[in-house]
């Protein structure tokens, strides 16, 4: 991820096969996390149109409508990185994308689902799904979108930050629970 612009960008573009760009939606929780609202993912294997097909595919397999495009772009970045060093992997993905064709992105969601159902047991589909699940839910955008707070050691755990703040069910009697540490 880089902010676009400047000489670094021109150097990058020379070696780059495709480009995904976007703007983090203002007012989204991610906007406060991102260094720049504008983001770009430079690709070394996929063309821009292949990357767009992959985005459509991922948004069909793992649809979260209001999850920022950046999270999906990070999956494509991970696929692209692997494809750069693993020729067999790259060939498999290229063949799958060839089969889907550029038109895939223009189909309606039910049509895209029908197309993917036919190939859901293929290695291509399973590879994209697996990488999607591995990367998508590990992104800062996903943490923010799902309200997941992540590691807590650096903040003193959840002991005083809501681990027991549920009040719509009865409290557990002392004999089946335990006292808070420190407080006696």
């Amino acid at each position, binding site marked *: 991820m880089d902010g676009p612009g400047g000489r670094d960008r021109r150097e990058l573009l020379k070696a780059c096969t495709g480009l995904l760009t976007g703007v983090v939606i203002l007012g989204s929780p991610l906007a406060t996390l991102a260094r720049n609202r504008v983001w770009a993912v430079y690709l070394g294997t996929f063309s821009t149109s292949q990357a767009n097909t992959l985005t459509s595919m991922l948004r*069909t*397999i*793992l*649809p*979260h409508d209001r999850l920022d495009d950046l999270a999906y772009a990070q999956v494509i970045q991970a696929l692209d990185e692997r494809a750069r060093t693993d020729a067999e992997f790259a060939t498999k993905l290229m063949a799958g994308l060839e089969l889907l064709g550029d038109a895939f992105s223009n189909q309606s969601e039910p049509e895209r*689902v029908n197309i*993917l159902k036919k190939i*859901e047991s293929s290695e291509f589909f399973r590879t994209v*799904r697996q990488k999607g*699940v*591995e990367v998508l*839910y*590990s992104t800062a955008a*996903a*943490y923010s979108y*799902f*309200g*997941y*707070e*992540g*590691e*807590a*050691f*650096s903040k*003193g*755990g*959840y*002991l005083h*930050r*809501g*681990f*027991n*703040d*549920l009040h*719509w*069910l*009865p*409290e*557990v009697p002392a*004999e*089946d*629970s*335990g*006292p*808070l*540490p*420190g407080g006696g």
Partner: protein
Amino acid sequence: MTSIPLNDERAVAIIGSGAGGGTLAHELTRRGISVVLLEAGKRQSTETFSQVPGEAFQQLTWLDTRTQSGDWGVARDFPNLPVWHCKTLGGTTVHWTASAPRLQPWELRAKTTYGNVMGSSLIDWPLAYEELEKYYQLAEARLRVTRRNGVPGLPASNNFKVMYAGAKKLGYKQVHTGHLAINSRAYDGRGFCIQQGFCVQGCKMGAKWSTLYTEIPKAQATGKLDLRLEATACRIEHGKDGRANAVVYRDRQGFEQRQYARIVCVAGNAIETARLLLLSESSQFPNGLGNSSGQVGRNYCHQITGFVWGIFDKPIYSWRGATLAGVVEDEAVNNLSRGFVGGYRMELVTLDLPTFPLVGLPYGWGRDFTSVIENYRNLSGMFINGEDLPRSQNRITLSPQVKDSLGLPVAHVHVEEHTNDQALRTHAQGQMRRMFEAVGANRVVEGPTPPATHNLCTARMSRGPEDGVTNQWGQSHEVKNLFISDGSALSTPGCANPTLTIVALALRQAEFIAGEMKAGNI
């Protein structure tokens, strides 16, 4: 740093530093016995544990290839990862969730209690509960288990409040925040639980008992322990007299080394323990060391496990808090009216966001799939921990095709579920569903059986060699100075999470080994 020469034939060699091996190393060294401890992994610490779930998985997990076959769900959902245990100093005690219940007396008499169950290879343990009880007490004190010896329980989390209310609506009585080897108060130089929820990534407070920062440093402090990291055992050798006399291993640089030893104790987790014995074949032991009766690797048990997720219309934030701090114990009984033998526990569970769709819901796609994850903050989780039946054909063998980086055949895991296993799982899933629905869940989703973390019984204790590998001390029936010191030695799994039992058996075994050494018997 204590250094024991490779040709020192007086030392005890222990392979593996987890609950069994790490505890045994401490118990022998504090009795003045010299120990060489071989650990395949590296050393991490409370400072180095990664808090990025994917990184922590890479940091701690035994990632060497295993192959598998059979009809259990793991073969379908996790074809490349049949089992999930650790390769790091402290072994699987680094990532365990610290549930430390005891087996019950009748579980040690499984064959007598359940009768002849067709298609199983049940046996009774060669020791009675009464002989183990003292060591359970010692283990509970050592691990500072909550709700034992006056140690307070952990406080109830949001996730547990859901479990508790549901369980009470169904009339369950034995419901509490668990018998956990997690400090509810600071103890022994280790901190107390601050409800981080990152138990599986390694407890950065050191509140969770792990041999990494308890037994192993204490063993080192005796001056009797030679700890060798990144030392991968490849073969156990024996002399003409049929006694084990050396462990051949690869060191950090990949060079082959041979550590001579008076006694060899294997504690590499049930998969690698069985594999190592099978790799140690010779003209005298053509089927593997101590395996003349062909029992090594058989009767592999993994306990019946599985997730059930309840989705509510309000937030639970289940990730806040100790992962497994809650249990319903009422079903940990043998009650044939349920349609199966053996019992199960229902335990609280949560998974961090990156791990949830990988392990807690590893199948499906599209709107139906993501509709569960969309509700991540409104999810509550429960986990089955039930007894599975031993079967002779469920076993660890050496892969005929696949070899590891050292050129040695990898372990192959084969599991065919017994209909009893399936009936137990279905019953447990049904009860969890009822519990969630009783407190207003909108939807209940059954998750998979995850890669097995409770790997057991592949060198089980038995009265004789015809149906097991070791006697009641974990001592090989055939090779008197070869011991099994991990979960492989359990005769049957029962429905208790196994670590406390492994520690109790290691404490008992250490006493036996020290006595036998003194008497000159081994």
